[in-house]
């Protein structure tokens, strides 16, 4: 774990029971900050993109590259102002875009599943894994700060799973997901669920390369969640209200919550369900199945 800032370079990606974890941060030389600068914050699909991960060039917003460092390195006059016009998260966005292309080429539908801790992401995936068996292959990338407890639950449900432990990190980033994807055997026409770290703030900012963003909120969290965390709900393609079996016991106004979702995220579809009783689950499956690319025809090898 990075002692200075707890940054994502320390993430550990592993398949519990399948040997030693992979350390996403690598073992490269460290600089004075304790940051692993050579590859700790960027990982690719090792050559699958034909992209050299080490050369550290910068993709400018206009699509050009800033490789001509000579003009910059060591030639700056003191006090000179250098215009950059660069997105701070450009590197994450670039890796996310490569993830997206990689998934698209392979006919895999990736979902970025986000919610506060305890909203029911893992329970939803467990039930979906069991009930979709034979109809849709569901693989899961599990993001948690620590432990493989959720990965164990998902595996018991019959899904292929890889665990990312972010340590002090509060969200997944595109580089972690890039590396985790490589460890899974993802068939064409399948879905990969990226269960983000439970957090309604930070994950909103980090594109992972997903095809859809799904935000969960449970009825126990209160009606006004979408208004309190508009940044998260704004980018949602689907909002899932979970734990509806608890409606008789809590003060949750489903209609009002629906209005709030409409205010911050008018484009989002909404589903109400209970992964305990099964109510509403079919709608979730219909939503998923309608978006997954067609599986390869017989005899066509998986790519």
């Amino acid at each position, binding site marked *: 774990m990075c002692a200075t800032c707890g940054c*994502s370079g320390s993430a550990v990606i592993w398949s519990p029971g399948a040997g030693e974890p992979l350390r996403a941060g690598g073992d490269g030389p460290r600089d004075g900050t304790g940051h692993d600068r050579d590859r700790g914050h960027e990982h690719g699909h090792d050559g699958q993109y034909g992209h050299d991960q080490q050369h550290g060039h910068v993709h400018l917003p206009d699509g050009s590259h800033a490789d001509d460092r000579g003009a910059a*390195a060591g030639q700056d006059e003191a006090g000179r102002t*250098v215009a950059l016009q660069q997105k*701070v998260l450009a590197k994450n966005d670039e890796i996310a875009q490569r993830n997206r292309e990689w998934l698209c080429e392979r006919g895999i539908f990736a979902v970025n599943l986000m919610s506060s801790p305890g909203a029911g992401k893992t329970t939803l995936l467990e039930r979906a894994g069991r009930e979709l068996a034979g109809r849709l292959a569901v693989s899961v990338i599990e993001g948690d700060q620590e432990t493989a407890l959720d990965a164990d639950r998902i595996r018991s449900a019959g899904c292929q799973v890889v665990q990312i432990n972010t340590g002090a990190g509060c*969200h997944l980033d595109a580089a972690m997901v890039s590396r985790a994807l490589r460890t899974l055997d993802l068939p064409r026409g399948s879905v990969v669920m990226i269960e983000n770290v439970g957090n309604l703030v930070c994950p909103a900012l980090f594109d992972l390369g997903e095809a859809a963003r799904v935000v969960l909120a449970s009825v126990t969290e209160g009606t006004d969640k979408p*208004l309190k965390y508009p*940044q998260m709900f704004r980018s949602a393609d689907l909002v899932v209200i979970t734990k509806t079996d608890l409606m008789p016991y809590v003060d949750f106004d489903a209609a009002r919550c629906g209005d709030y979702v409409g*205010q911050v995220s008018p484009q989002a579809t909404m589903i109400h369900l209970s992964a305990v009783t099964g109510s509403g689950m079919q709608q979730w499956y219909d939503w998923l199945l309608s978006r997954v690319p067609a599986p390869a025809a017989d005899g066509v090898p998986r790519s």
Partner: protein
Amino acid sequence: MHELAIAEGLVDAVTERLPGTRIASVRLEIGALSGVVADSLRFCFDLAAEGTPLEGARLEITEPPARCECRACGGDFAPDSPIVLCPCGSADVAVVSGQQLTITSVKVV
């Protein structure tokens, strides 16, 4: 505290563009709808910059207001909160600007 990861990204982006160059200040634009808190970013930047050519650099942050277009009435407006609602009452709006998180320039020592 995603500002920590963002501060890291900021330091990495500048050191990649200007390797080995000591930096005196960094100009940043943080849009009103970017989801980033300027004060948190300042705090994290000092940590992330430690031991790099950006150590001690000043962060000059501007926070341009957001601009939206309403799809219902066609009007242009600047939302006054993170919940983007047109004065006409519609929530069906396109965010034209205000989500940016951009390094505009740096000053070399």
